[in-house]
């Protein structure tokens, strides 16, 4: 095949250079964090780390973090919120999506409006009233507050409803003729064919639960109930800011510096392990959402 070879060559170079540079820039902050976490404490204090750990390599930071109780309490709490929170999210989302997906259901239109309206209300507007309601219900400082206040997101209900609509009506009607109840149909027919959609939506909820920090910070003061993100914020961000404000350039505490970076590594680790396994569901989710979104 004949091609003006020269200009394609330049184009390809441009493509690969851009992509490679973008990936390197994306990876760098993580590489740097790992490098600092293994570096000698003196090297960290003298700010000598740029790309690779500065010898003598030290595990001191990790020894400190393993003994640092708040991180592990936070970890346990985050696991709790992630597991039970995501389970509640999925149950509520399924219970809402199934009736809404049935064309013969008398409340279909009402429910669609009832759920969809909420996607237009900005979170800033309801921030204070929501806090006051949770406070008046006596839910502040309880684990239940985080689990129940964010039990379902309208957007994911709409997505799952659209997916349930694709389950063949004949299959469902046939089961009804055989005397199956709506619950049996949902459990035995609809859910088993919706595995991929449920995995995708569950993953989104899980990430929300794992990464969320704002409402946890607002609702929960008791350190024994705080999730990892709230602990990390205090450890990494508040400490750094305070240090810059008070002490300026000269003073930085060896221990505090070391803890920060090893804490980041320890908390990214599970995400790094799970990420490659779930990535394809994640990519699928974006296209799932854009169909109806």
């Amino acid at each position: 095949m004949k091609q003006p070879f020269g200009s394609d060559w330049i184009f390809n170079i441009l493509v690969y250079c851009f992509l490679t540079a973008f990936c390197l820039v994306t990876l760098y902050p993580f590489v740097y964090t790992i490098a600092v976490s293994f570096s000698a404490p003196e090297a960290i204090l003298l700010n000598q780390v740029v790309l690779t750990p500065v010898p003598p390599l030290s595990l001191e930071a990790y020894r400190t973090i393993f003994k640092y109780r708040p991180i592990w309490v936070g970890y346990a709490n985050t696991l709790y919120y992630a597991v039970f929170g995501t389970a509640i999210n999925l149950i509520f989302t399924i219970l809402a999506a199934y009736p809404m997906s049935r064309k013969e259901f008398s409340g279909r239109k009402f429910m669609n409006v009832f759920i969809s309206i909420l996607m237009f209300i900005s979170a800033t507007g309801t921030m204070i009233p929501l806090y006051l309601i949770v406070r008046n219900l006596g839910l502040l400082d309880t684990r239940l507050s985080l689990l129940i206040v964010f039990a379902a997101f309208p957007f994911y209900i709409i997505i799952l409803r659209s997916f349930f609509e694709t389950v063949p009506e004949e299959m469902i009607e046939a089961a009804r003729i055989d005397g199956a109840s709506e619950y049996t149909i949902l459990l035995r027919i609809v859910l088993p064919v919706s595995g991929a959609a449920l995995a995708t939506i569950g993953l989104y909820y899980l990430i929300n639960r794992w990464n969320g920090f704002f409402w946890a910070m607002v609702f929960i003061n008791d350190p024994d109930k705080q999730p990892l993100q709230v602990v990390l914020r205090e450890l990494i961000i508040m400490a750094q800011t305070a240090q810059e404000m008070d002490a300026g350039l000269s003073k930085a505490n060896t221990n505090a510096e070391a803890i920060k970076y090893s804490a980041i590594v320890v908390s990214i680790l599970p995400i790094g392990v799970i990420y490659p396994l779930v990535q394809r569901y994640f990519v699928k989710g974006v296209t799932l959402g854009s169909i109806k979104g």
Partner: protein
Amino acid sequence: MRKKTLLDQKALWIMLIPVVAYFILFRYLPIAGILIAFKRYSPFRGFLESPWIGFQYFIQFVNSIYFYRVLRNTLLIGVYYIIFAFPIPILLALFLNNVTNSTLKKTYQTITLFPYFVSFVIIAGIVINMLSPSTGVVNRIRELMGLEPIYFMQEPKYFVTIYNLIRIFKESGYEAIVYLAALTTIDPTLYEAARCDGATKFQQLKHITIPAVIPAIVIMLLVRIGRIVSVSFEEVLLLQNSVNLEASEVISTYVYRRGLVGSDFSYATAVGLLETVVALILVITSNTLARRFKSETTLW
């Protein structure tokens, strides 16, 4: 005509009870609660007993120095985002689409998507530490070049740049997926025909690829403009400190600071309501435009 069905209406309504109860209690009641913006709400008197005061808090906010400041910061962050951050995922998708080796393509996508999974607390934490004047690598490099260290987080003028760079870093790989999905709808025979006619890759990009993603770009742009006042709030809050507040205080963080930190419940709700109304108008307008655009283009 309606088909006859054995559908059990009652069972479906019963299934919805917990869902409806949840949405009324934690989604609709807070919307009704916005009414405290027009009251002098006191926690001791409760919602019903607190006296009505009309638009007093709205007037107070509009006349305060914060009105101009938070409005300016909110819009600045949003406009800079659209100018600088919005095009990056498009470039990323166009370039990824040109990678023919599937392993390489997957590697690029895996890497660029990864930061989306990492929490903002961690990303903001890494960035703040990297920018630290004493122990951050950015100032280390400046030092090696013989330059004075900069207190990046303490200088209001850097805030918008830092914030947008972080969003580019965290979200570009994710946003690119939408454009990549649009690119997969292109008929591969178009490229074949173009190649046979001797079109260069650049010409193929210009005449086949770009026209195919333009609908997706326009729709995403409209969505962005619709959300311009709803700056993603957690990110800003995490990067804020008392010194850069002048540039980093946006409407939502101001509502948080006055309402939840300062317990000025009614005043903060009034500010939040102003934002909600503006955001609602913007979202509805941009959605309508996007829908009209969608129906006019055949691709979407």
